[in-house]
């Protein structure tokens, strides 16, 4: 019996926008794919998200944003993870993100960016391929 790591993902909604349709759909999609999903709820500050991710020892954080505040909030999460020495936790994001913002976000360390209309399956597969199991 070799023990197998269960994938643990945090789904978080930073910022004041409360539209959680996308976050809820992806959380369900991840659960149905057999992941453990820690859902933080709405209106989270980057500080809260990072503290929670560390306490939960997740493999990745999926951020959802629909209100244009991603350009501040997403990079801030990555920055705080670095500060806490937890940058092995992968950050990816989804929502409405204009094409022109994508290079900046990638540079800031957001590993995956899923635009509107991304099928659930695609996000699930991306996680499976990109999450390195913890040692």
């Amino acid at each position, binding site marked *: *019996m070799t*023990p*197998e*790591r*269960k994938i*643990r993902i945090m789904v978080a909604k930073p910022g004041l926008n409360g539209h959680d349709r996308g976050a809820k759909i992806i*959380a*369900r999609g*991840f*659960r*149905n*794919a*057999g*992941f*453990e*999903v*820690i*859902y*933080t*709820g709405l209106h*989270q*500050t980057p*500080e*809260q998200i990072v*503290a*929670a991710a*560390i*306490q*939960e*020892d997740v493999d990745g954080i999926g951020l959802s944003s629909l209100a244009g505040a991603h350009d501040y909030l997403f990079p801030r999460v990555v920055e705080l993870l670095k500060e*806490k*020495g*937890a940058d092995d936790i992968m950050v990816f994001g989804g929502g409405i993100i204009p094409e022109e913002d994508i290079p900046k976000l990638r540079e800031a360390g957001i590993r995956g960016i899923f635009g509107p209309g991304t099928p659930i399956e695609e996000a699930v597969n991306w996680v499976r391929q990109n999450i390195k199991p*913890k040692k």
Partner: protein
Amino acid sequence: MSLAEKILRGDIRAASRLMRDIDDRMPSAMEELKKIYSKTGNAYIIGITGPPGSGKSTLVDKTVEILRKERKTVGIVAVDPTSPFTGGAILGDRIRMQRHSIDDGVFIRSLATRGSLGGISRSTSDIIKVMDAMGKDIIIVETVGVGQDEVDIVNTAHTSVVVLVPGSGDDIQAIKAGILEIGDIFVINKCERQGADRLEMELKATLEMGPKREDGWMPLIFKTEALLGKGIFELVYGIYRHREKLLACDYLEKKIFERTKWEFLCILDSELRDTIVERLEKDKRLDKIIDDLKRRKANPYSIVEKILEGELKGSS
């Protein structure tokens, strides 16, 4: 440095990694647990159980607020069910407590049941130990409120709190006898609703009629409106009173003895089984045994007997 050493020096990441290893059943986790075991046994453990949606997480959130004002550090283990169909889970208890996540004195960990019954996860008691080793004064365990057998919480906690809600069909008749026996403290949450007083009266009468407890403790009943933080202060002091009572009558010692024994037997149980199964699987003996059983060429009782004889001899 090993995870255990780091944890004892206050490294949060190490603590949460060990919890992960425990939950994922990594063999290394047991090595680390061996190293922290002697540093545990200091935290006071409170279990909270009750039907789904009764307000357990909200109560935990408000309780933590009071404990933090008293400068007590807190660990929280919140258990939610694993989906039996997909093996996945959405762990949402944390939502109600998220405001405490940036407080260094609070550590919240969400767990999925991963197939275990009893309202808590198989890893719960080991994860409690990690929090204990981290130096948390109080550890709160929120169980899954699926109406399964919640008795495991009694073995895990020093004080068990049972949450009920008025007018939701769980009036006294509907409440399983079991749940009445496990509660040291009863909370009638959402007490702003109709029927709270009636539920309190009925509960009181039933508890008074019930068999006297070994420790002589008469369960306390509190009415709360967790959403607005009403009645929480009283609840916290009720928990302290229970603790004092346990201490005063030496019952705490007995409880801890029972708890330690239960835990030891659990570990013995799972380790024995895992070890033996692993050995049987290694040389494909397991398949052959099952095959023999299927064809009725052997019976399971004799085989287990034989294995135990062999294994115990071999290992001692």
